[in-house]
């Protein structure tokens, strides 16, 4: 079955701007469970939906072919040849052979006839979710998207094309160079990038690392889209394998709250990227010597107890003695 023959049945008129579904997509049918859900929410729909004027010509657009696009959009067409998506031009499997442009922009016959912008699907002008559906019609079933649905980017309507520039080179579609990746992220995450101008930081401005070394922009099972390594370990351990353990004597926060319990990963004015200016306060904020009430508050670590004289410089940096603060294989007090 030809893909273009499916479109009128698969997508009702108000979906005319939606991406063409892949061949074999089941059409919308009354009596389908989805229709019941649609009916149940119809009154809400009617309340907020703008009046839909049926198009004068209900005849659906058909595919015109990329060469027709090239006639007017020569510069875009040429630039697109450097884009990995140019391979779509030969994609018989999805029915997009010679229709690479229309694989994203939808059937273009009406636009070819009228040259009106309203007659072609422009993902940049669509609601983000709808534009993304166009990308996901091919890219949904890939491992990078296991966490996408629940990622902060998806929830905050950050569209695929916000980071992936179409019609351009492979490097602009998916930045691979660390500086380019960092620039892409810093474009929105300005404050995070500013943290890397602090003296103690991970070496991103120097080009030794990039944001995606630690974060998966498509989402992750961990908070803040932190990458996982070795199945379910936090991405920090990809480079800091010596902190992984398991240790004979683990330090609970490393496992329960992660590195950010004590470290500011983007950058800090405090040595070792600590969250406090002095080490003792990093420790004392949990090991606060409040035995009974701490137990009542269901928190860990309230009771070291210790009798150290914090007025003495010897005890002002706990890690002078508790050298294995990330976990020890020898000492329960993390002394060796």
């Amino acid at each position: 079955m030809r893909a273009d023959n499916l479109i009128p049945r698969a997508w009702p008129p108000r979906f005319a701007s939606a991406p063409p579904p892949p061949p074999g997509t089941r059409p919308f049918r009354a009596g389908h469970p989805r229709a019941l859900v649609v009916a149940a929410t119809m009154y809400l729909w009617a309340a907020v939906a703008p009046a839909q004027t049926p198009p004068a010509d209900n005849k659906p657009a058909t595919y015109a072919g990329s060469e027709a696009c090239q006639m007017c959009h020569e510069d875009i067409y040429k630039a697109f040849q450097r884009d990995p998506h140019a391979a779509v031009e030969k994609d018989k499997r999805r029915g997009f052979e010679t229709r690479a442009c229309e694989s994203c922009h939808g059937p273009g016959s009406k636009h070819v006839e009228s040259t009106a912008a309203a007659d072609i699907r422009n993902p940049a002008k669509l609601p983000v979710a709808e534009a993304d559906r166009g990308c996901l019609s091919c890219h949904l079933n890939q491992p990078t998207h296991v966490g996408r649905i629940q990622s902060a980017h998806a929830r905050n309507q950050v569209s695929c094309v916000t980071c992936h520039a179409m019609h351009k080179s492979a490097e602009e579609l998916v930045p691979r160079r660390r500086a380019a990746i960092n620039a892409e992220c810093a474009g929105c995450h300005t404050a995070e990038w500013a943290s890397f101008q602090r003296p103690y930081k991970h070496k991103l401005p120097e080009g030794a690392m990039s944001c995606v070394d630690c974060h998966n922009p498509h989402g992750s099972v961990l908070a803040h889209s932190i990458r996982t390594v070795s199945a379910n370990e936090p991405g920090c351990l990809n480079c800091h394998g010596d902190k992984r353990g398991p240790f004979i004597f683990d330090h609970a926060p490393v496992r329960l709250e992660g590195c950010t319990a004590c470290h500011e990963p983007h950058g800090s004015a405090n040595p070792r990227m600590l969250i406090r200016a002095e080490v003792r306060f990093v420790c004392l904020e949990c090991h606060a010597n409040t035995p009974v009430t701490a137990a009542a508050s269901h928190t860990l670590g309230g009771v070291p107890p210790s009798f150290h004289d914090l007025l003495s410089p010897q005890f002002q940096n706990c890690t002078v003695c508790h050298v294995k603060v990330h976990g020890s294989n020898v000492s329960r007090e993390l002394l060796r």
Partner: protein
Amino acid sequence: MKIWLLALAALPLAAQQAAPAAQETPAAPLTMPETTITGSVDLGYRFNSVGGSLDTFRSVVDMGSGVRLLGLDLTIESATQKWFDRINVRGSGWGGDPYTTAHVDATRHDWYHFSFDYRDIAYFNFLPSFADPTIGNGVFLDQQSFDSHRRMMDFELQLLPGHWIVPYLGYSRDSGFGTGITDFVNGINSYPVEDKPRDSTNNYRGGVRLELKKFHVTLEQGGTTFKDDQQVFTSNQNFGNNPGPFLGEQLDVTSLTQAYGVRGDSIYSKALLTANPTPWLDLFGEFLYSRPDTNVNYSQYNVGQFVDLTPLLLYTSELDLLTGVAKQPHTTANLGFEIRPVRRLRVIESWMTDRLHNASSAALTQQLLTPAMTTLLNSFTDLLVMNYNREQVDVLFDLTSRITLRGGYRYEWGDGLTNGALLSGLPTETGQLKRQVGLAGVSYRPLQRLSLSVDFEGSGGDRGYFRTSLQDYQKARVQARYQVRQSLVLGANFSVLSNQNPNPAVNYSFLSRDSSASVTWTPNNSKRITLTGEYTRATLRSDLNYIVPQDFTSGTSSYRDNVNEASTLVNLLIPGFGANGPKLSVGGSLLRSSGSRPTDFYQPTMRFSTPPYKHMTWYGEWRYYGFAEPFYQYEGFRSQLVTIGVHFTR
């Protein structure tokens, strides 16, 4: 030597014939394209001068003098496409820089994709303000310092035999080595001694991805090995941080050897699933399982004068042998769906559980040489249990094509269990997590070039694992971006996190705010001048009660951090020399923070480049680093780095 070898790698670029001039008529369609090499090579010599604390300079910047391969970026495109379609080669920092990187990837369409990544990052840290117990005596020694490297490499080969099946194999290695100073703790004294860390982790993995029309499955099986052969030693007499006599005896160490023989291994499994059985339903799930084990053989031999407080015992030598094992099965599962009952409405539901159980045991034999030989035997067990669960539902509704509303709810619950602290008298300690979080957000795009998003979450707070955990908190973020015209983009961000734990035993109050604004100006398609700039102000206020150990009075840990940071970069093409004329770049960053650790850090930079030939550019770069801390003036430094180099492009 390495630098010259890498320079040789650039020779093909220099030897490459100039690209033929564009022909007036289009090439015939059957003309075979030539193998091409494009890219750039950046070679330079850097001079540096440092005033002030060299140790702090090395801890923060650590850029040295000498010849450097500052950048290499080549793309080789095959004419025949017999073995590969394209190879990318990138590298930076070769010749002695603290951040050395290399990357190679090769692809042949429908056959394979190969990638190799290498990084060698030098970690130097020697800051007396961090760990110097004798600083009151004017001694400037960081007793937790190191001069080490972490070296990471990763190989991955993906085979592409068809459109829907992708087998892959991977190997990565992470290793650390170097020297440093650490403390040998014994009785009431601690002694700064030499440290030689050496660890490595190998990761082997293989799997297959099945990417079909309606679903995708990834199955991966992997394993890791780990070893840690850290050695701590000294052969010099050392009186430690408590040099005074104890019970009339002068405590010291004259000889020490600590040898950590830690071996670990793990197997892990990963299964990922995405599916869209109908156009209105997407499913996703993942199951992750790892079971790292650690086996420890530790030995220690120390000679000197020592004291053991439990029981009170003076002795002159000690031989410790410890064997132990730790096992940590760790299971994570995640399942969810997105359902789109109508076009404008999406409902996302997800469940997640993360369960970890570390059980360990160890046996320690101590032989102490007192006037007689005393042997002490100890056995230990320890545990750490974490059960974390999360359920989240988000409802997204496209109110109009320009406004999307989002509301949701997240419930997190779990518990953590550890052995009780030694002197607490408790057999175990339990931490509990219970957090009900409301979620909301708005995305508004009134114009194609203007976007505004607001993201909020808040929780009334119930229980957290730790005193500093999120409890009664509100978190919000506002982001705006406006493309005023094709060449001018403005951005603004604001985020706030307020966290309170009013429990009288905790009394925690935390507030952080970040505000930033950015501008990007690229008039005339960046032909003459480009300007990027941003300004950020970040403030953080934290107060938390604790009991002061020495007198059991109530104290407050207060932390303040007020940061003003600005950075800019202006690129200017010098007028009168055409599009390929000399360029001047001026910019850098400026950071001033006040609060608990006031710091000034300035990094201005200027670069001038001029192309004597079409594919070659001479350049000179000046970079200044100024670092000052009013509380620790002895750690300030000023440094100027001047680099002269040549940049080849093709």
